[in-house]
């Protein structure tokens, strides 16, 4: 183990997978650019050759479809979309084709494909360069979706996604790229569908997704100063998601906050909250609280961006509401 940044861990996973398996190749936009992928693919073209690292024309639909076809022909492609927003141009190959293929042909073939897409929020990039669309993909049967929040998982989930015989959407967030953490040197795998308990607590459960898991840890420290012990779960996989670990924690703490870096309506937080309400209603002492983005597109200017994205205080206030500390909640409001 040594300390790596999140972005270095992503790059290492790519390099190790390509070195270990000739079937793995990369295709997508920005692969030969020194900056486009934020350093996550730096010099892979030099290391492995441009035949296996194809910086493609901006044809998201056909490029993603080609990756599906190559997967069906026995390769292990990683198709890269430097903005998750661009993946919207490739919904047919992802949903109609890759996600349905195994079911349609009764398991006679599957699509061992990794679709990697980056959320590039912040930085005044506006509504078409920063959308967190994971809930849309979480909706689709046959497609797995993962969102690592730590350097170790950035590596472990990418390698697990490459191993998986099914299509996996791997979403990483530029806000996490500078995070550091211990990362195994060997080819480690984070099991898809398994959440991680990042902090043990007894008063409230905070289920965090992607950078919201990191935010939840910050909130938990603030809460600890107030004598509130929060259990923080980093969901890591959105589909399948770790219902048993989340429910177990909900039953223990009897209070749940879901912190999702996506929109509220029809979002990942709605699915998680609905499941907890259905399965553990009688074990809860308060309604489930959600911390999400407001139901508006991402603004561009710095001032509006700062108001748009939740901070740890939003999670702290949600915890107060859940614990019935109305006075604190109202004072904060």
């Amino acid at each position, binding site marked *: 183990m040594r300390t790596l940044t999140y972005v270095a861990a992503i790059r290492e996973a790519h390099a190790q997978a390509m070195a270990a398996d000739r079937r793995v190749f990369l295709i997508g936009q920005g692969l030969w650019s020194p900056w486009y992928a934020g350093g996550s693919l730096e010099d892979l073209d030099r290391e492995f050759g441009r035949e*296996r690292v194809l910086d493609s*024309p901006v044809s998201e*639909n056909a490029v993603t479809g080609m990756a599906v*076809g190559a997967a069906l022909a026995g390769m292990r492609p990683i198709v890269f979309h430097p903005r998750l927003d661009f993946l919207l141009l490739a919904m047919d190959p992802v949903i109609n084709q890759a996600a349905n293929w195994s*079911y349609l*042909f009764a*398991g006679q073939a599957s699509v061992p494909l990794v679709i990697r897409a980056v959320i590039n929020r912040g930085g005044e990039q506006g509504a078409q360069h920063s959308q967190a669309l994971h809930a849309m993909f979480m909706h689709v049967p*046959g497609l797995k979706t993962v969102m690592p929040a730590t350097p170790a998982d950035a590596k472990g989930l990418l390698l697990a996604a490459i191993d998986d015989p099914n299509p996996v959407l791997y979403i990483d967030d530029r806000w996490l790229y500078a995070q550091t953490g211990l990362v195994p040197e060997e080819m480690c795998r984070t099991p898809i569908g398994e959440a991680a308990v990042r902090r043990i607590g007894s008063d409230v459960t905070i289920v965090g997704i992607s950078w919201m898991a990191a935010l939840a840890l910050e909130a938990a420290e603030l809460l600890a100063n107030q004598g509130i012990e929060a259990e923080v779960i980093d969901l890591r996989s959105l589909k399948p998601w770790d219902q048993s670990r989340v429910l177990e924690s909900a039953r223990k703490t009897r209070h749940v906050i879901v912190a999702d870096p996506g929109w509220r309506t029809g979002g990942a937080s709605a699915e998680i909250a609905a499941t907890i309400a259905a399965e553990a209603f009688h074990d809860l002492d308060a309604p489930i609280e959600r911390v999400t983005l407001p139901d508006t597109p991402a603004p561009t200017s710095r001032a509006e961006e700062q108001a748009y994205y939740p901070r740890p205080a939003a999670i702290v206030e949600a915890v107060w509401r859940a614990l019935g500390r109305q006075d604190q909640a109202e004072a904060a409001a």
Partner: protein
Amino acid sequence: MLRIRKGEEAIAQMSESGEARCPCHLSIGQEAIAAGVCAALGAEDTIWGGHRSHGHYLAKGGSLEGLFAEVLGKTTGCAGGRGGSMHLMDTEQGIPGTVPIVAGTVPLAAGSALAYKLRHEARVAVAFFGDGALEEGSVHETLNLAALYRLPMIFVCENNLYSSHLHWTERRVADNLDQAGVFHSVPSQRVDGNQVEAVYNAAREAAVRARLGAGPSFLECRTFRWRGHVGPGSDEDVGVERRGELAEWLARDPIERAEQELAMMSAIDLEPHRAAIDEEIGRALEAARRAAAPDPQRAGEYVCVL
């Protein structure tokens, strides 16, 4: 060709009687394209198709029993009864899959061609699609990518003049689909799609080019479907006016033309072949009808593979 014709006529009867309930898009009248292209391919080559792909599947080696059982939604169908007429596959025979999203498999075919190229395999991928698919952006994207990466691929456009109920003049200004590849530096030509030898020759040349590493080719094969867009009837059944072309195209029946050419070359007796096809169809129909329907308890299986 005869096997496709007779096989599809059997499917038409099953659709008409209500025995087959899934939407069936028949290629009757277009058989020379599937037969000619697949005759130019080897067992290691792959074909990708669309909603009207019974002919492609049979020409590449798919079984009649697998087709009939699939159309009837039986477990012995080529897609295990999950796909129906529009989802045919037989990976052993080089048929990875057909799907009804127009142009859906065109980029997938290119992806398989990329896999062959990366692995240095002398294999060719064929994308079969209709004239309507040229209205999809992904085909144009794929033409460029295939040219750029010099993929071992053949684009086979079956231009039957109609996209569902719309004549080409209602969808395009110029009759120039044979130019579709030119802008993307993909050699393109128009072929008489009702003349099996012409199709075979064009496909063989394209396959040789692909295997030599010279890149993709585009063939516009002109043809006409005798039946409606979907189902056993002609389009008039559902109130779609066609332009009276059918009589003209019936006179250019690809099977009759091939038979005449064969007769000129030698005194071949086709009767034993016809009898053998009829017998194969009879056996396949019987087996498909006898086969089990899927167990509804297992309808949740194979969403993901383990």
